[in-house]
């Protein structure tokens, strides 16, 4: 119980900050939609953050845009289209599948297939490979080992 209280106390300043930075509307369902979409949109100022995470002024503005457009009755696809028209595919964390992104989408699969193909080819070749015949000397040594007349430990060390 005391631990729980401690965790709660530690979270208090975080919660306070978050409430301060984000101007939220009263509608929790709308807010949930805004945040869900915002997590898939990249902030152009802090490029490793989504506009849901970033508190850059532009991210706040764009979240407000998303909210406003939802309120105006637009759906997710229309809002994404609105932002892509202005900022390009760069705002999408999930890049679209098109000519310029073919390598991006198909590259890993092609690499996997190529790697698997190469491995299969190698394995099959190894099976078919005939080991080189033993020389007379090797033959004698092998026979001696099989007879038990040689000392394997010494042999292997030499």
């Amino acid at each position, binding site marked *: 119980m005391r631990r729980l209280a401690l965790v709660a106390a530690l979270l208090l300043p975080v919660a306070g900050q978050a409430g301060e930075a984000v101007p939220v509307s009263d509608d929790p369902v709308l807010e949930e939609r805004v945040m869900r979409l915002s997590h898939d949109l990249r902030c152009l100022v802090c490029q490793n953050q989504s506009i849901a995470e970033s508190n850059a002024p532009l991210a706040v503005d764009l979240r407000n*845009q998303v909210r406003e457009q939802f309120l105006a009755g637009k759906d997710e696809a229309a809002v994404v289209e609105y932002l892509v028209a202005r900022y390009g595919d760069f705002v999408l964390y999930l890049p679209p599948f098109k000519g310029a992104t073919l390598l991006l989408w198909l590259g890993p699969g092609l690499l996997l297939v190529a790697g698997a193909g190469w491995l299969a080819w190698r394995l099959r070749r190894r099976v078919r490979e005939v080991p080189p015949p033993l020389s007379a000397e090797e033959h004698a040594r092998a026979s001696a080992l099989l007879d038990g007349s040689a000392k394997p430990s010494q042999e292997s060390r030499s």
Partner: protein
Amino acid sequence: MKAKFLVPLFIFLLLAGFLGYGLKLNPREVPSPLIGKPAPAFRVPQLQAEDKSISPEDLKGRVWLLNVWASWCISCRYEHPVLVDFARNSPVPIIGLNYKEVRGDGALDVKGIDPATELATARQRARQWLVEHGGDPYMVSAVDLDGRIGIDYGVYGVPETFLIDQQGVIRYKHIGPITPESLRDVLIPKIAELQRAS
């Protein structure tokens, strides 16, 4: 199969080529999807003439530059003398877009400010900044209080500059402060090319 030992070297060179190319790209420069598209419309109050408004419509038939700036923008201070110098005998008008002059300044607390006060404050601050930083290079500056025009133009950092042609189509976007080099090597040749085409 004698050249087999060269395969890792080849892969290495390929990888180094890709990485080397990636190193030269500037992740801050996000290509604008608006190049080749009509400049988004707006009509907002002018910064200097209080009773007048400005719209891209007003510049139809001319090649012009739209320069996004604000008094709180640090890079604009480096860009400004270049613009002032260029404006002295610029072949094209430079239109300023004063972006979020009041709201964009993190140092100001402007929650619940009324629009009239915000416009007056923006005008006062922006004009003062122009006076303090070597003059007004703009034929006209548009006042974008809430940054909505900025969003329509895909602005994500100030300063940014758009080159717009006679038909009102955006032809080029410069991200970051204009330097004497970028002006000489890129903007001026592009302006000349557009003017020749007319």
